[in-house]
Structures are given as structure tokens and as C-alpha cells.
């Protein structure tokens, strides 16, 4: 009896890994055969980023039960710090993949660190109040990065948060230049690294969910008071989930930032946070495989609907509402379960009939 449960969990985890690996192999194969259109090739890396963002947000929203509306803020921290580091290391680290990985680790670490610092005061709040504070955090980050200047000149490394562009000493260049963001980025991101990041994320998140910490996090979500009564420090575990989630979002952000030639702070706004949240909720709260699939489908969907021209976004909105109604509505669920039961009965009868 005990075995079945463990196997069921393991089975689901295995399925998640399998789906991701098979998808990667298929895409790699098609790409090596030159069967992929430019558009699809272009989706590969951002889809990887959004999958990782969705999984990391799912850890917070689905597993930990805390609504965050500022996930794009962590993504932005990772993106900018990663891009700046990659640019600084241009001459010291030759290997592009290594530089990308260093950038991702740096972006993730910085995002995790800021997540930790913000978490100390903020995680005392709960529910919608935490949600609004994360929203506020995202906006603050966007505002600060939009007025941040990072560069090098003859006096060395320069960093400033200012209302007007500071002057460089002698020869030099701003890497990150306020609202202009970063331009002329040397693109480093590859699908293979993106795939690696997804695997890493799955490994960390699935391991976390099935460990002592994960159980504690879920316990806090299910019943905070009972969790405290068995000696779980609620704040610690919310913090752990928050920091891991921020770290992964930062890594995804660095991958994202190094996939485009330009990057600006306005991208990491409320709408991006909401988009990631849509991936998570549609994929199912706490359902990691669901996040992977919904991030992919919902990313491709508006692109696939380009043929609809002016009606594209309105139809996307309708599809979103309908999918939500069909996957969540209790009535629809009831109906589908009735249908499923009937099908089963029918199937059984047929079987019995066949047996006779």
C-alpha cells in the first residue's frame, strides 16, 4: 500500500522529466534536419525561460500557497545582472556557454539574495496583502532599473542610480543605460542551455517538493496553525520557497536577457508577472508538468494565431476565459466526471458482452 503512493509520485515526476526530454530530442532532431521554421526556432529559448519561470512561480503559488504578482521583478534582476556580467566577461571568458552559465548563476544568485532581503520584512504578510506587496516590489525594481547606469570607463567600474545620465570619465561605455536599457547584447543563449536549465529547475523543485522542506511548505499551505503546532517555523519555510523561486526566476531572466540584442526595464512589468501567473494557474496549482505544458501552449498560442490579424488578441482572451471555465468550473467538472463514468460503464458492458 505504501509503495503505491510513493510510486505514483515518482511516476508523475518521471513523466515530467520524460516529457521534457522527449520534447527536447524531437526539437533537436527537427532542427538538425532543418525542418523547423525560423519562427519555431525563435520560440525555443523564450519557451524554456517561461517554463522555468512558471515552475518557479508554481513553487510559490501552488506549493506554498502564496500569491505573488511580482515575479517579473526577479526575472528582471536576473536578466540585467546576467547581461551586465556577460558583457564584462567578454574578454576574460572565451567560452560562450561558460559565460552564459556564469551569467545565469550570477543572475540567479542576485535575484535570490534580493528575494531574501525583501522576504525578511515582507513574508510576515499573507494572502492578498502579500500579493500587493510583491506587486509593489516588481514596480519598484522596474523603476530603479529604469534609472540605473552601469558601465566601465577609465576610472574603472561605474555604477549609478540617477535621474540623469552621469558623465563618464575619459573613454568608456555604459553597458546599462537607464531607460535605454542594454543594447547591442551579444546573444549567448541556446536551446541546449535552456533545456539544461529546465532540467535543473525540475530537479531542484521536484526534489524540494518531495523532501522534508517540501512537506513543511505544503503543510504550511494546507493548515498554518497545525504546521506550527508540530514545530514548523512557518516564516522560514515560506522564505525558503521564496528564495528558491526567486533564484530560479533570476536564472531564467539571465537566459532570457542573453537571447535578445536589446533589453529594457519596461519589459519586466506587471503584465509579464501576470502572464507567468496565468501559465501557473492554467497548468494547475502545484502541478509541475501542468506548468511546463501550459507555458509552452500559451506562449505559442498567440503566435500561432497571427493569421487572425486584428482579432488575434481578442480571440486569445476568449480562449483564455473558456479554458479557465472548462478546467475549473465545478459544473463542467461534474459533467465531465459523469460522462467519464458513463463511458466506463459502457466500456464495461461491452467488455462483459464480449466476454459472454
Amino acid at each position, binding site marked *: 500500500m505504501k509503495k503505491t503512493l510513493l510510486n505514483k509520485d515518482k511516476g508523475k515526476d518521471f513523466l515530467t522529466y520524460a516529457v521534457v526530454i522527449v520534447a527536447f530530442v524531437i526539437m533537436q532532431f527537427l532542427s538538425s534536419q532543418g525542418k523547423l521554421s525560423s519562427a519555431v526556432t525563435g520560440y525555443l529559448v523564450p519557451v524554456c525561460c517561461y517554463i522555468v519561470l512558471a515552475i518557479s512561480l508554481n513553487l510559490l503559488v501552488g506549493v506554498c500557497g502564496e500569491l505573488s504578482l511580482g515575479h517579473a521583478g526577479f526575472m528582471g534582476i536576473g536578466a540585467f545582472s546576467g547581461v551586465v556580467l556577460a558583457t564584462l566577461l567578454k574578454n576574460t571568458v572565451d567560452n560562450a556557454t561558460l559565460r552564459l552559465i556564469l551569467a545565469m548563476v550570477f543572475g540567479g544568485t542576485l535575484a535570490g539574495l534580493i528575494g531574501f532581503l525583501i522576504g525578511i520584512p515582507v513574508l510576515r*504578510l499573507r494572502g492578498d496583502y502579500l500579493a500587493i506587496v510583491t506587486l509593489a516590489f516588481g514596480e519598484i525594481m522596474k523603476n530603479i532599473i529604469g534609472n540605473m547606469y552601469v558601465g566601465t570607463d577609465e576610472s574603472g567600474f561605474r555604477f549609478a542610480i540617477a535621474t540623469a545620465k552621469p558623465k563618464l570619465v575619459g573613454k568608456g561605455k555604459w553597458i546599462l543605460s537607464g531607460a535605454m536599457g542594454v543594447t547591442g547584447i551579444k546573444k549567448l543563449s541556446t536551446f541546449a542551455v535552456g533545456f539544461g536549465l529546465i532540467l535543473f529547475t525540475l530537479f531542484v523543485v521536484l526534489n524540494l517538493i518531495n523532501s522534508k522542506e517540501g512537506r513543511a511548505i505544503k503543510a504550511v499551505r494546507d493548515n498554518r496553525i497545525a504546521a506550527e503546532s508540530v514545530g514548523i517555523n512557518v516564516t522560514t519555510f515560506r522564505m525558503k520557497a521564496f528564495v528558491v523561486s526567486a533564484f530560479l526566476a533570476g536564472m531564467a531572466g539571465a537566459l532570457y536577457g542573453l537571447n535578445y540584442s536589446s533589453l529594457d526595464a519596461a519589459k519586466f512589468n506587471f503584465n509579464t508577472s*501576470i502572464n507567468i501567473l496565468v501559465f501557473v494557474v492554467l497548468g494547475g496549482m502545484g502541478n509541475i508538468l501542468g506548468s511546463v505544458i501550459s507555458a509552452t501552449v500559451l506562449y505559442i498560442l498567440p503566435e500561432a494565431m497571427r493569421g487572425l490579424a486584428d482579432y488575434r488578441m481578442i480571440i486569445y482572451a476568449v480562449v483564455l476565459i473558456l479554458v479557465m471555465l472548462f478546467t*475549473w468550473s465545478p459544473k463542467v467538472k461534474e459533467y465531465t466526471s459523469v460522462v467519464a463514468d458513463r463511458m466506463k460503464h459502457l466500456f464495461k458492458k461491452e467488455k462483459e458482452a464480449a466476454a459472454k
Partner: protein
Amino acid sequence: MNILQYLINGISIGSVYAIIALGYTMVYGIAKMLNFAHGDVIMVGAYICYCVTVYLGLPVLAGVLLSMVVCTVLGITIEGLAYKPLRGTPSLAVLITAIGVSYFLQNAAQLIWSSNPKSFTSIVSNMKPLHLFGSLTITGEVIVTVAVSVVIMIGLTWFTSSTRIGKSMRAVSEDRDAAQLMGINVNRTISITFAIGSALAAVAGVLMCSSIPVLMPTTGSMPGIRAFTAAVFGGIGSIPGAMLGGILLGIIETFAKAYLSTQFSDAIVFGVLIIILLVKPAGLLGKQVQEKV
């Protein structure tokens, strides 16, 4: 004198936030959902008023009334089609649907009214601004917006405390299951809440566009988020809280711009919000609900 002028500016934008926040907070209190489409209902309200007054040439009052009617119908329709089927599911699910509705309204507005901005004629355009002490200016819009938001707040407070429907709203907001057991039609109560909230949204739209005259399909989204912030600030679910939160948010925003930095005003406003929530975790006038063990 400057400080007074900025105070007036702050109250002016703050009362716009307050009116939007009142709708937000009411729907939240009763339906326990964050209706992110509220800002877009405001935009529709403003467009309707614009069409009625500019294209049909009808008087302002007709524009306001008609936009209230249209928004009420729209609110009930949205609630019935998109939110009601999800009653009883986690509030996050409804939140996502609300976002879908928001996308829908914005894009529908773009198809109907095009993305070109329209300049909204203030409904009090014939009211001369008041000039006090020489340099102080109070525009008609400020006076009307503040007055209307106070009236709405008092009206709502009276409505929820003294009328039958209002009382049932409060009952639903306290404990939905218990209210149902007491024979209150919960679905109908929630629909009525949406109807009122949407009618308020129409008023908010008209007043907002009177102060801020640019009307575009995306006009409602940012003020909507600001108003949501204001509602939380004041204690979400609390009617006087929404009013207080809105006005304070407006004043803080204006003072941050006036005395600190226009570049960093966002960071300052949201920073203050975080600090206040840390000190008062349920907002300024919100009730801290202790979970019963």
C-alpha cells in the same frame, strides 16, 4: 502656498483613485475576488459617455446615465458568463478569468473605437476654476470628483448598513455559507454587487477622464492597478478604507513627485505602501482577522 496646491492636486487624483477603489473593494468584500477587469469597465464607461455626448450630441447627464446603464449591464453579463461558473473555486482561478476579461475588453474597445486617442471633454468644462489667494487653483473637476466620491462613500456605507440588500451583502461578505443557510440568495446578492460596482465604474470613468482627458483602450488599466493598490492600502473590503486609501495614495504620489523626484515617484509610492502594510498588515482601516483555533 505650493504645498497647498500640491495637496489639492493630490486630493484630485486621489479622489479619482478612491472612486475606482470603492468599486474594487466592494466587489472584493462580497465576492472575495480581485476583479482586475474593473479598470477596463471604467474605460468602457468613459467611451460610452464620450460617444453619447460627442457623437450623439446629447447633454452630459444623459451621457453619464447611459454609461452607467451600459456598464451595469456589462458588469452583470461579465459576472454571469465569466465569474459565476467559477463560484466555489479558489479565488486565483477567478482572478485569471478576470484578466482574460480585461484583455477582452481592451481589445474589443480597440476594434470598436480604434487605438487613436480621443480627447475627453470634461463634464464640468463650463465651470470656471476657483482661484484662491492668488496662486492657488482649484478646478471644477477637483470639486466635483471629491464631492461625488464622498457622496458615493456615504451612500454605500448607508446602503450596506441600512437596506435589506445591503445587509444581505454584508452577511454574504462575513460568511457566505451561513448567509446561504439564512435564506439569502448568494448568487443574486453577488450579481447586484457587480451591478453596483460597475455603475460606480462608469461614474469613475467619466470623472477620471474629465480630469485626465486622454481616452484610449488602455486608459483604464494603470489607474485600475493604482486603485487596487489604494484599496489594499486602506484595508481591502472596507468602504471608508478605500476612500482614505485612494486619497492618501494620491497625496503621497503627488508629494513624492513634487518634493522628491518625478523619476523615482513609483518606487517611493510603492515603498511607502510596503512600509505601511508592514506596520498595519491589514491596511489602514482593515480588520485584522484572527484565525480561530
